[in-house]
């Protein structure tokens, strides 16, 4: 409860603060202060000290898994604010509104990690999505951004409609006439037609939100069109929150009927992995490449829904953390660069040895090389799928896709270390020592989770 209330309040504070802040950087400091308060409050709640005791009639349930997931989200956001806070100022004049919108997104994310009814799920998704439509189009002079924003809004509204239809069918179809996700619990047996239709619609709606193929059409354009700072935010924090909701909903409501819809998930997973990876190979812009590769990571995260066991739950946490840390890290660097093409990275290792080194660690982690968090994450989701024991072809397909992933990530590494800079280009990044330290800390976190994933996982069982 702490996180939901404080993020909402702080969003309002930031919005009105915009009137009083004299300097543009003040908003950044306030945002960092806000996220720190949220983080601490959430950790306190995790250890059993909630500030607020609102009777939600069981519509919200705060379990250790959800609160732990919140912590991951807030730590990632904190890193994001620290690394890229100053770049938010460059997007446009309304700095504190941008931060305010991001706090509302976080509020939506906190609801998604604790919802216990379909209504709250719907609310959470809307609170999460609406600020994003605005953030995508926040650079008003950029035509691509405007197009992306409109596309996102239309697609988002469409998918929300499908989601609502699904909720309605489930409500009508279950014998209790209840919105509570636990009471939908269907037991063993076969699906009723009404419930089956509702389940498929919910699946489609949620797949839209996590950008799983074939409901992904908005994703590359939005991630590519939005200002790079916000792409980073959307690809990581928003996506993992949506995945968590997806997992929570399907495990609690439809977990017992897992075998009925597992094949459907398998098909979506396979399509997401293949399309994301193969398309990413052909991208010349690093930003767009990462947009497509985020589809591929969505494919790996879909394994969590495919397997739906204890290992999958641990894998979800690890993958969310590993993927977010690495993506935030690499985007923090991309945002600072003028040239988003792969050639823009040529000779980067000579120009900025330290930043280049951290960039390589982020890329290695995204590829899934051992000693980085990316590996342990992939390892856990694959282990979850193999433990499930069905459809092992999917696992083989996934590792083939992971190898394809090496192709495009390593192309950037090659540019960084093995290619000479283009003549005349000697771009020096305008970064502070603090920025470099933060990148090192992020990289260190990634390696730490790569060696000892238990540091993250053990908290589930707290």
């Amino acid at each position, binding site marked *: 409860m702490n996180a939901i209330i404080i993020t909402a309040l702080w969003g309002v504070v930031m919005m009105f603060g915009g009137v009083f802040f004299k300097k543009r950087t003040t908003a950044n400091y306030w945002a960092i202060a806000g996220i720190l308060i949220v983080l601490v409050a959430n950790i306190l709640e995790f250890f059993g000290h909630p500030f607020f005791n609102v009777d939600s009639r069981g519509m919200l349930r705060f379990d250790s898994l959800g609160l732990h997931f919140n912590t991951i989200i807030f730590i990632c956001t904190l890193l994001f604010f620290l690394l890229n806070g100053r770049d938010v100022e460059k997007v446009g004049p309304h700095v504190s509104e941008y931060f305010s919108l991001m706090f509302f997104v976080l509020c939506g994310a906190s609801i998604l990690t604790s919802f216990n009814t379909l209504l709250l799920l719907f609310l959470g998704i809307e609170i999460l999505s609406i600020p994003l439509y605005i953030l995508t189009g926040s650079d008003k002079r950029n035509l691509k951004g405007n197009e992306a924003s409109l596309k996102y809004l239309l697609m988002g509204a469409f998918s929300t409609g499908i989601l609502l239809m699904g909720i309605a069918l489930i409500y009508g179809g279950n014998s209790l006439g209840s919105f509570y996700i636990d009471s939908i619990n269907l037991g063993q047996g076969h699906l009723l037609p009404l419930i089956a239709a509702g389940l498929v619609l919910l699946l489609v709606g949620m797949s839209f939100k996590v950008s799983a193929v074939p409901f992904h059409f908005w994703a590359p354009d939005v991630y590519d069109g939005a200002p790079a700072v916000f792409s980073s935010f959307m690809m990581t924090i928003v996506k993992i929150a949506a995945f968590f909701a997806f997992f929570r909903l399907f495990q609690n409501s439809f977990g017992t009927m897992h075998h009925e819809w597992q094949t459907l998930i398998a098909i979506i997973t396979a399509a997401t992995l293949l399309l994301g990876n193969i398309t990413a190979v052909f991208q010349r812009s690093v930003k767009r490449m990462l947009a497509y590769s985020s589809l591929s990571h969505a494919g790996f995260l879909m394994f969590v829904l495919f397997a739906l066991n204890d290992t999958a739950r641990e894998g979800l946490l690890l993958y969310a953390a590993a993927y977010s840390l690495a993506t935030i890290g690499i985007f923090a660097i991309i945002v600072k660069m003028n040239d988003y093409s792969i050639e823009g990275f040529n000779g980067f290792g000579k120009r900025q040895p330290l930043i280049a080194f951290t960039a390589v660690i982020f890329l*290695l982690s995204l590829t899934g*090389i*051992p*000693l980085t968090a990316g*590996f342990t994450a992939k*390892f856990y989701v*694959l*282990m979850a799928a*193999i*433990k499930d*024991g069905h459809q*092992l072809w999917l*696992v*083989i397909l996934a*590792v*083939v896709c*992971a*190898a394809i992933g*090496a*192709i495009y990530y*390593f192309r950037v590494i*090659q540019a960084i*270390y*093995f*290619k000479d800079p283009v003549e005349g280009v000697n771009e020096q990044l305008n970064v502070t020592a603090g920025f470099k330290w933060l990148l090192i800390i992020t990289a260190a976190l990634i390696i730490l989770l790569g060696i*000892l*994933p*238990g540091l993250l*996982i*053990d908290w589930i069982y707290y």
Partner: protein
Amino acid sequence: MLGTYYTFPELLIWIPLITGIAAIFIKNTKSIKTFALLSSIATLVISIISLFYSDIAHHPEYFYFNNVSYVWMPYIGSSFSVGLDGMGFLLTFLTAFSYPLIFAATYKSEFKNPNGFFALMLLSQAGIMGVFVATDALLFYFFWELALIPLYFLCSRWGGEKKIQATFKFFVYTFLGSLLMLVGIIYVYMHAPAVSADSAHSFSLNSFYHADLSAHQQGWLFWLFFAAFAVKIPIFPFHTWQPDVYEQSNYPSVMVLSGIMVKMGVLGMIRWLLPIFPSAVAKYSHIVIVLCVIGILYASCIALYQNDLKRFVAWSSIAHLGLMGAAVFSANTLGLQGVMLEMLNHGINILALWVIVDIIEKNTGVRKISELSGLAAKSPGLAIFLVIIAFANIALPLSNSFVSEFLMLNGLFEYNKWIAAFACLGIVLSAVYMLSMVQKTFYGKMNTLAEQAKKMSGGQGVVLFILVIAVLALGIYPEPVIHLTQSTVTNILSKVIIK
């Protein structure tokens, strides 16, 4: 005694790892070279000391000098377990022995960013050592990849014009192979018995040996593991990356790749493939052996027509490794014993060949066989070394390979005499290509290039001398190596046959 505080396998990993990280911070070219050489000599000393404690069969207390296990990820049943058995002693010694020689032989070579270069070399040594000593499947996989990454950077950064593409092909091939193995590892893990109460299954090698797998499961798991090892060795038709990488890379990396890293694949097959999937081995070994023998003949024929010395050595190496692969899957005592010996011999011979090719290229500026002629008149010492090494590659009696190739062919003969006959053709062909190469480059009329050729340096001479001594010593008295690895051979074979 060292072994009481730190076990040998740990030291063999930590020394190159720590010195490798430290090497990044040494900027001076001269001191970094000395530093790397000293580090590798320290590893060699540890390796030699460990050999004195290798007789675990007669001294059970030595077991604790050579095996150790630390808690790492108890919740999934993985631990940091390392240990040395006969094969482990042999291969860690080969690694420890090769690195100082590699550093010494290329001491005069210039590299841009020498600190990065030597740091990566030492890190690759740590990774390779880890592969040879890991007795936990997950740890094995970690090291398997960690050995690859430094070499990827080494070969992409320092080398010929097309190095980036060539190395990248190599990387994607091996990465895909190892990921397939990872799927296999996880699947076997799900069927492996637990060793402690913390987790339902275990990644330890012993649990893997007792995994409860049906013949059908073994059948497809076999190919998943095989993919990783076959790419690394490489076995025909997974060899296509190899000649390009060898041609394009710098000499020290290529020495590591061809001399030591290929043994990772052979060790993988012997330790992680044969005993875990015995029924699959019985079912599919003939396919693999036929592939290997095709590889021997195919690579030998191509080696005949190579003009570039580096590609020449690359193809001849594929031929030799084909024989090793075939002997591994013949799965009998003679064959495996031969493979053990050949792993050491091949490492020594190919290292010597690379050193000679390096000297030729440095001193004449070319490595085209057609442009070289009559080098022997100018550098008779090098000619003698080359002839001895060439004989060793052909497996002439008194040279080290004679014993090992004889044993391997014997093992193959036990398996199937027709296959052995075809494999023997490979030895005939190797005589043809080796001798014609020696003849074309070193004998015949001296051309202008040979006249202007520089002399080899003293350091290179010493390295070649040591290698030649090793060739002869192992040719005359291979008994210690056979004695060292005997226990591994019987141990592996007992699991392959009984289960």
